[in-house]
């Protein structure tokens, strides 16, 4: 019945090389363009003829922006508002990538580890940069939790350092695992539908529908969790505790 992981394989559409680096256009790249276009169109349509009493589309966009603003103010304080474009891009890119990946035949951009890895790396780099810019060398006291007795420090500091470095990895892998697992399970169930034929095929099909709904929920939740954690990590560096 075919390999359920087959649709995660990338096929090059237009091979391109730049100074020996492989930057060919494959499905993932095309899908990323589609996602960017979708986000752009969404906001363009929502803010065109903006009225004081908003239309439904404008309302949705306003809800998203309000929510992000509250999140940033709460976790990163006033200084954090400088990073609003970054956080908003993060949230809407991940959300639209997750959702558009559910369209049959589309490729899920966020099911590629390295896509999520780069996003998480950006968050990590930003947290370090913001911490160093705002606090200078004092930033390294983030590795020492307040109230730790001195004799615990040799054990606590390696754990804290490791913890800081592992957090972006976990951020990336969480999104990757959720997206990949969800789609793989749906693929496997669809394989079962084909094997079951007419008599038994309706059962797995029902499950597939239910799982599709769950996947939509997971798409929202994972985008939300990624963004919340991004604000928390950067906020940790800004507030230094």
């Amino acid at each position, binding site marked *: 019945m075919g390999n359920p992981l087959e649709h995660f394989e990338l096929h090059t559409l237009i091979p391109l090389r730049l100074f020996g680096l492989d930057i060919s256009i494959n499905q993932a790249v095309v899908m990323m363009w589609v996602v960017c276009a979708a986000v752009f169109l969404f906001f363009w349509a929502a803010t065109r003829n903006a009225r004081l009493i908003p239309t439904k589309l404008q309302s949705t966009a306003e*809800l998203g922006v309000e929510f992000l603003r509250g999140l940033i103010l709460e976790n990163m304080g006033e200084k954090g508002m400088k990073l609003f474009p970054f956080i908003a891009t993060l949230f809407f890119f991940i959300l639209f990538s997750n959702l558009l990946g559910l369209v049959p035949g589309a490729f899920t951009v966020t099911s590629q580890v390295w896509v999520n890895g780069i996003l998480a790396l950006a968050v990590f780099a930003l947290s370090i940069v913001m911490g160093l810019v705002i606090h200078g060398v004092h930033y390294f006291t983030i590795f020492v939790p*307040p109230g730790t007795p001195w004799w615990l420090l040799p054990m606590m500091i*390696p*754990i804290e350092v*490791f913890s800081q470095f*592992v957090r972006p*990895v976990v951020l990336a892998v969480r999104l990757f695992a*959720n997206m990949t697992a969800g789609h793989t399970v749906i693929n496997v169930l669809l394989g079962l539908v084909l094997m079951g034929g007419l008599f038994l095929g309706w059962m797995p099909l029902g499950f597939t529908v239910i799982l599709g709904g769950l996947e939509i929920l997971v798409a929202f939740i994972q985008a939300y*969790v990624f963004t*919340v954690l991004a604000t928390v990590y950067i906020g940790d560096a800004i507030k230094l505790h």
Partner: protein
Amino acid sequence: MADPQDPFRQGMSMAARVGVELAVTILVGALLGYGLDRWFSTRPWLMLVGLILGTATAFRNLYRSLGPPPDSKKGNDGKSA
């Protein structure tokens, strides 16, 4: 999509985070230890160190992600952010 402090949303976000965090932190610790092992040819000790470090970090992050206790004053009571 409103108030980020809404308990349902906090519950959902915690559910989506904790499982994967636990597993991945331990895994990354072990993998890091294994990688360093191959570089320094000190099998298997560094991998064990990595495993222990990863596990300790995993549980510490879990503890930290619970947040401050219900009615504590803000300040040093051992539960850092």
